Structures are given as C-alpha cells and as structure tokens.
C-alpha cells in the first residue's frame, strides 16, 4: 500500500520539475529572441540616424554645385577679360559686380566640401586634401584681383594671366565630383550591405520565433491531452467510487434488514420460550423441577438481556434509537429500580440503599424506560462486582450550567466492590471491554452495557464519570439535565395511561396507596369481553397470547398469517373484532399488507383497531406500521403489564376487565369454577389489612410477597396439601400453622380461616381429608385470582 502513493507521486514530481525547467528555458529563449529583435530595431534606427546626420545640402550636390560654380566663374572670367576693354563704363561696372558675385559664390562653395565637414559621411581620400590645397592656392591668387581686399576696379590685365590657373582647376574639380560620387556609392553599398545583413538576422529571428511558437504549440497540445487524460481517469475513478458507495450502501441496508430480521427471528422464539416458562412456573412442580425451571428462566432472561444490548447498540449505531421523554415520577421510577435490584443485592448479602435528596424533584421530563435501563446497568454492575459491603444509589441535584435551565439531577452509584485500576478505567467504556479478561470469565455479560448507558445518558444531554480505586470500590456518576415538571393534576391520567399501576385501594377507590401514586383502577364494571384476533405465524406465540388474553377475560381468535386475518376480519360483519393484534413479519401476507387491506374494507370492518406485534424495536418499523394504518405497537417479547397498559389505553377499564367471560370457556381452558365473582373480595380477602400492608411496604413488595406465597416458593402449601392428600394427621398442624401465619399476614382471610381450622382440629373436624384438600386448593386459587384481579399477583391461569 505504501508504495502505491510514492509510485503515483514520482512521475508527477519529476514532471513538475521538468515543466519548470522547460518554462525557464522558454523564458530564456524568448528573452534572447526579443533582445535580438530590439538590437535589430536599434540598428535600423542608427542607420536612419546616419541619414539624418548627413546634413544640409547633400554631399554630391555640394560637389557638383562647386563644379557648376567653377564653370560659371571660368566662363564669366573669360568673358570679362575678352569684353571689358570694349565696354562702356556702366556696363563694365555691372559686369565687374557679376564677376565678383560669381567669384564670391564659388569661394563660398569651397568651404562646404571641406574634409572636416564631409568626414562623417565619406571616407578620407588623399585626393580630396590635395584638391582642397590646390583650390586654396588658386583662391589666394585670384583674391588679389577679385577678393574683398582687391581694388574696386578689376584689372583685366591682371586677371588675364590667372585665367590659365583657373582653367587648370577643371580636372581637379571634376576629379572631386567623381570622388564624391564614389564615396556616396560606397556608402550606399555598405548601407545596403548592413540593411541586407539586418534583414538576414531578422529573417533568422523570425524563423526561430516560428519554431519556438511551434514548440510551444506542441507543448500546449500535449498538456491539453494530458489534462484530458487525467480528467477521464478522475471521472472513471469517481464512477468507480460512486459504484462502490452504492454497493456499500446496499450492503449496509442488507445488514440493517438482516439485523431487523434476526431480531425478529430471535425475539419471537424467545417470546414463546419465556412465556411458556412463566406458564410452566405456575403449574405444580416439585422442588427440583422448579429449580431447573428457574435456571432455564434465568438463562433465557440473561440471553434476552444480551440480545437487547446488541439491539440497542445497533440502534444507537444506526441512530435509530429515539428517546421518548414524557413526564416521569422520579421516586416511583427509583422504587421500581429498587424493587428489581434489592433482591439481587440481598442474594449477595449486600447492604443496598437508595438515598434521595429532598431537593430532587418528584416529577421530571425523561424517557423513563431508558433512564431505568441506565440505572439497572450501573447498579447491576455494582452488585455484580461487589462481593461484600454495600451498594448505594444517591440521588441529588447539582446547579444548572445556565441560570435559566433546570438544575441537573445527579445519580451516583457507589459500591465497595473490587474497583478498577487506571488502565481498566481507560478501557472501560470501550466496546466489549470488561475490566480485564478474567472478569469476563468470572462475571459474564456482553460488555456492551456501559457503552450503551453512556450513549443513552449523552443522548439525554448528560454524561457518566467514573472514579475508582482497586480494592476499595467504584463510583459512577451520571449527571442529567432532566427538565423539572411542575405538574397540574390533569397530567395524571396521561401518566396513568402510559404506566398503569395496580390498584392499591381494594374497595371502591376511596383512597390511593401512598407508595404507588399510579392510577386507581376504576371500579370493575360488568362489561362485554373484548373480541381479539391474534395474528401470528408462530404457534407458541399464538398460544401464549391466547392464554394471556383469555386470562384477562377476553375472547380470542387466531389467525396464522395476514391473509387469514384479513379474511376473518372481512367475514365478521355482525360483531366485528374489537382488536387485531397483528404480527408484522409473516408469510403469505405480512402484517402491514393485511392492515392496508383491512383499512380498504367497507365500514365498520375497516375501523377495526389494529396493533402491531413485532420483535423489531426500530423506530422506522413503528413508522411503517402507523403508515400502514396500525393504531399502536406492542413489542415482543410481550410483557403482561404492557398488554394491560395497551388494553387500558384503548378500551379503558373494559380492557382490564377480569370478569368471567359470558361465553363458555374454550375446551383448552382449565375449569373456571374458582373464578372470582364480584363481591367475593371482601369475603375472601382482608382488604383493610392488605391496604395497610400496601401503604406500608409499597405495592411492589406486596406483590412480591403475594406472588411468593402463591408460587409456593417455600413449599409449605405443597407440604400441607400433600399431607392432606395422604390423610396423614402427623405434622399436619405444624404444616398448617406455617401456611396460616403467612396467609393471615398477607390478608388472605378466607384461606387463613380454613387453614386455622385444619391447624386446630386436624383431621377430626369432620370433613374427609380429601375434601379438605380440594377445598384448600380451590380457596388458594380463588385468593390468587382475587389478588390477580386487584393487580397484586399474576393470575394462576396456565395452559392445559
């Protein structure tokens, strides 16, 4: 890999260096060419200037003019010598003036051809100097007769001998003219030669310029081609990258789909398995079977936790996880956390304590489910890694960052556990990190919890900090900006609808339980049970849902797929279904398609309430479900209280009506002889006592206690029943005593009375032991059902 960029870089680098050199070379050449041209221009200018310097009357003209004037002078001199003696005085004077003028003109011409003046334009010829000397000599002689110093009257006799001298100049003057002609000719030749030379240089330079332009053109063409090539390559690369991106996106979508599918596939059997285990737990079992069952359930729940962790993480990663803040009762939420964590702490003999500062608001805006998840994780870890001592949750407030914002809530989870060293702290929030490897083996878990917790807290706008000391303990501090709610009482029903709590008031709702400010269950009114169609392709799920819903007193129909469900809804014209629970993923026709088909039916079938039932917890699945026309959403694995909440939400009290169904029970259902009837409550249960207990302990603890009794965790009831079945009087009072004490404490009035009777009279009371056993069983079941109706226990119904 590392060689690739280097390989790609080298030609580019050397290329740029080469281009740089080329540019420098081109610049130099251009400078030379233009320098040459400039030189050439200056040369031409100099030649022109030479012409300008060639001053005044041009040279040849001056020489010839001299010759002309010489000839005129000579002619006039001869005329004067010949004519003067014969002329009258006036005519002679005019002729003298003409001759003098002519002579002066001739002399003035000699100065113009002086070698000193002509040397700039013609070479220095020796003949020139000789003729000049000759001329000067002649002028000297003639001046004596014609010059300015001569007598005014010209002496023709004196002039006569000079005529010969003047005539003698003819050859020399002519020679001088020829000389000038030659000089000018040579000048022209040399100038022509210079011009020719310059022209040659100019042509050479022009040719060179042409070549240079040609070279540049070639370079430009090559560059353009290279650029084009590069552009094409980049385009191809961009195309390939685009394709790769599309493939990657497809892969990602496939992964998401796979994950959603897997979550469904995994959760569906889990739903069934855990449901069935719950059911099995309620059936009579011996101690060993119960223990096995307990282990199986714990394993299943642990597996479900891991699955949920993985799903949460994938949702967090794909940003599918949405927080749903709503008004939350913080003390109650903490109470629920405590109810779940305290037994775990107790199991390890740890001191467990939740301390809430008085300044902490009772009601805040938060996603309660996720907040609980964080606390479960932090407390679960604390308990897991603490072998002795204490685990505590301290809740208080810290001032807000800005004055306008609400103060932040600080949740501190403190333990006296094994603690962590610096290196472990560093890796703590990293995925799959579990302190160190040995911890993973020793304590199990996915190692995802902390990461999920921190992500959730960050989504809520807070963060988690850790301090720890090996061997001393750890402290996890989550600070959250939870907006405080100063609620008007109207918001109460909303909270009630979303989280229906069990009723505390056993009678007709005269006062609410202090520890459980949830909704007071409305008086149970006689009402028509709901007709519910459960659509699920999974038979175990079908069965589980059926048992669950029937235990709530509703009539259940089943459909195997969307097509089946649609047909059933379509054909039920007289009494339409009140509710269709529709699995989303199904063969033949999925839930969404079925919903759309139902919504397309004529009224009133199209108004059927449809609730999505799916293991997918993704928000987009919800969105698709509501798009298809589904009214609500029920997550798998189905939790009893969630079903209750759902029904309460949609049908009010009718949804949680546990009155006996008016229709005969289906064959698969157990006998309903012990079904509670309205008005039985006061006869069977000591409502006042239970109400007091509830106020004292809180409904969850009461529920735990009652459930423990009915599940017969201690085996005391089973022992009593066994003794009665054997009609064995031995140990009977003792066994009855144990059961009576618990029953009385829990306010199971009728049962306590019966058992007290047995305790007191043994088998002597008159009734046969078998009848007693039967009576006792019935009374236990009746009490159970009564409690279940009140929301204090899970109903004893189990599939046949």
């Amino acid at each position: 890999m590392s060689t690739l960029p280097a390989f790609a870089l080298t030609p580019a680098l050397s290329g740029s260096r080469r281009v740089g050199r080329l540019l420098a070379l081109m610049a130099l050449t251009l400078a030379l060419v233009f320098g040459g041209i400039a030189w050439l221009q200056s040369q031409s200018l100099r030649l022109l200037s030479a012409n300008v310097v060639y001053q005044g009357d041009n040279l040849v003209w001056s020489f010839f003019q001299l010759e002309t004037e010489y000839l005129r002078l000579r002619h006039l001199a001869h005329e004067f010598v010949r004519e003067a003696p014969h002329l009258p005085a006036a005519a002679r004077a005019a002729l003298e003036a003409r001759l003098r003028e002519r002579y002066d003109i001739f002399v003035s011409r000699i100065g113009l051809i002086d070698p000193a003046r002509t040397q700039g334009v013609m070479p220095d010829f020796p003949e020139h100097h000789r003729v000049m000397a000759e001329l000067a000599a002649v002028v000297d002689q003639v001046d004596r007769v014609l010059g300015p110093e001569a007598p005014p009257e010209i002496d023709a006799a004196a002039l006569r001998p000079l005529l010969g001298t003047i005539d003698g100049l003819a050859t020399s003057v002519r020679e001088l003219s020829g000389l000038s002609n030659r000089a000018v000719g040579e000048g022209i030749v040399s100038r022509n030669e210079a011009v020719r030379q310059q022209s040659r240089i100019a042509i050479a330079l022009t040719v060179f310029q042409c070549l240079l332009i040609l070279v540049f053109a070639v370079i430009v063409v090559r560059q353009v081609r290279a650029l084009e090539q590069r552009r094409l390559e980049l385009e191809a690369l961009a195309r390939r990258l685009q394709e790769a991106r599309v493939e990657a996106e497809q892969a990602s979508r496939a992964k998401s789909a796979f994950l959603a599918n897997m979550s469904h596939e995994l959760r569906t059997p889990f739903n069934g398995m855990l449901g069935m285990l719950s059911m099995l737990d309620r059936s009579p079992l011996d101690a060993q079977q119960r223990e096995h069952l307990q282990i199986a359930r714990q394993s299943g729940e642990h597996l479900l936790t891991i699955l949920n962790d993985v799903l949460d993480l994938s949702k967090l990663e794909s940003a599918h996880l949405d927080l749903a803040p709503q008004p939350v009762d913080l003390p109650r939420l903490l109470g629920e956390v405590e109810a779940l964590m305290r037994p775990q702490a107790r199991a390890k003999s740890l001191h467990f304590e939740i301390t809430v500062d008085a300044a902490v608001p009772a009601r805040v805006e938060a996603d309660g489910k996720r907040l609980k998840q964080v606390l479960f994780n932090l407390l679960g870890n604390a308990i897991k890694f603490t072998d002795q001592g204490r685990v505590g949750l301290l809740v208080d407030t810290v001032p807000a960052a800005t004055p306008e914002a609400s103060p932040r809530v600080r949740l501190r989870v403190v333990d006296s556990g094994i603690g962590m060293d610096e290196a472990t702290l560093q890796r703590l929030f990293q995925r799959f990190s579990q302190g160190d490897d040995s911890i993973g083996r020793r304590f199990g878990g996915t190692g995802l919890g902390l990461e999920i917790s921190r992500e959730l807290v960050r989504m809520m706008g807070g963060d988690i900090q850790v301090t720890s000391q090996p061997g001393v303990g750890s402290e996890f501090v989550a600070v959250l900006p939870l907006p405080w709610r100063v609620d008007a009482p109207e918001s109460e029903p909303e909270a009630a609808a979303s989280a229906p709590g069990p009723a505390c008031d056993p009678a007709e709702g005269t006062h609410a339980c202090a520890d459980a400010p949830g909704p007071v269950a409305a008086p149970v009114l006689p009402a028509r049970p709901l007709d519910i169609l459960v659509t699920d392709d999974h038979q175990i799920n079908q069965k589980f849902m059926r048992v669950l819903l029937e235990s709530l007193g509703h009539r259940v129909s089943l459909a195997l797929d969307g097509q089946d469900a649609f047909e059933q809804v379509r054909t039920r014209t007289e009494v339409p279904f009140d509710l269709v629970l529709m699995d989303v993923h199904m063969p033949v026709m999925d839930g969404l398609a079925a919903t759309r088909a139902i919504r397309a039916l004529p009224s009133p079938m199209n108004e059927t309430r449809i609730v999505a039932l799916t293991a997918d917890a993704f928000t987009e699945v919800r969105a698709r479900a509501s798009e298809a026309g589904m009214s609500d959403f029920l997550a798998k694995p189905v939790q009893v209280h969630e079903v209750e909440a759902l029904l309460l939400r949609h049908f009010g009290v009718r949804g949680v009506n546990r009155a006996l169904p008016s229709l005969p029970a289906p064959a698969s259902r157990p006998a309903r002889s012990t079904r509670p009837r309205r008005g039985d409550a006061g006869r069977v249960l000591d409502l006042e006592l239970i109400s007091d207990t509830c106020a004292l302990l809180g409904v969850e603890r009461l529920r735990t206690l009652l459930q423990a009794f009915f599940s017969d965790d201690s085996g005391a009831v089973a022992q009593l029943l066994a003794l009665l079945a054997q009609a064995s009087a031995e140990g009977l009072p003792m066994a009855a005593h144990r059961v009576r004490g618990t029953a009385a404490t829990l306010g199971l009035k009728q049962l306590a009375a019966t058992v007290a009777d047995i305790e007191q009279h043994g088998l002597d009371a008159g009734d046969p032991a078998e009848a007693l056993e039967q009576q006792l069983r019935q009374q236990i079941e009746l009490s159970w059902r009564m409690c279940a109706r009140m929301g204090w226990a899970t109903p004893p119904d189990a599939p046949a």
Partner: protein
Amino acid sequence: MITRRHLLAASALLPLAARGTPPELVRPRGRVVLTISGRIGVRNAADAAQFDMDMLAAMRQHSFSTHTPWYPQAHKFTGPLLREVLDAVGAHGRTLRAIALNDYTVELPVEDATRYPVVLARLFDDRPMSVREKGPLFIIYPFDSDEALRSERYYSRSAWQLKAIDVV
C-alpha cells in the same frame, strides 16, 4: 546706413500693415538685396517689392542663437521676422519660392513663417554676411527651439545667399 526717414517710414508702416491696409513702401535707395514678387499687395517697383539692406535693418529686428548644419558651433542670427517682411508687402499666397544667388530655388509654405519665428537673417554674430559667408540674407529657422525643425526638410528650406522671394 539707416536714415531717420527710413525709421519713420518703417514705424509708420507696421501698424498699417497689421490692419491690412496697403501701406506705402519706400523705394530702395541703396543696392537692392531682396526682391519679393508674386501675390503681394504692396509694391515699390513695376511688379515687385524691392528692399535694400537699410530698409530691412529699419524693421523690427529679431535675433537668436542656434546650431546649424553649416557651422560646427551655435551662432547668433539677427534680422527681421520673415512674417513681418511678408506683412510689409501684403503677401497673400500659400507658398514662398526662395531663390538664391546661384539660382537655387526652394519652396517653403507661408505657414512656416507664421508658425515659427523664422528670421530673415542679415547679421551673423552681429556682423553683416558677405556672399562668401552665405550672405547677404539667410532664412534661418530656430532649430534649437524645436526638435521637429532639426530635419532635412527644414535644413533644405533654409535658403542662403537669398536674393528673391516669389509668393505663390
């Protein structure tokens, strides 16, 4: 010699010439050194205006030093402005044909005389010029004052040994 009468005549003549009224032009008393002919409004001969050296000397004199192609150094030239001489004769042509003693003829536009202070030089370094010294009159442009004048065109228009001007 400049006589008193010449001076008076010349000074009386100038403003009249400027006003375009044909003035009287005195007759030359000495040897005629310049004859102006052609399209002129004032004459003192049959068909020309003739000047002797005194008449020219009586006119407003103008002088400057300049380099010329004919002498290695700068020399001082003095004489009347050509345009004022032309005004004195009421010249109304476009071109002047200058004729030298050796019958050399050169044409120069009248515009030259109006545009440049062209001098009809009669003194060379304050001395009269003999024929040998390119006298007696020399048309001199102020070569040193303007680069454009230093060319063959104006050198050739500078006629020396001037004897006549024909206004065309």
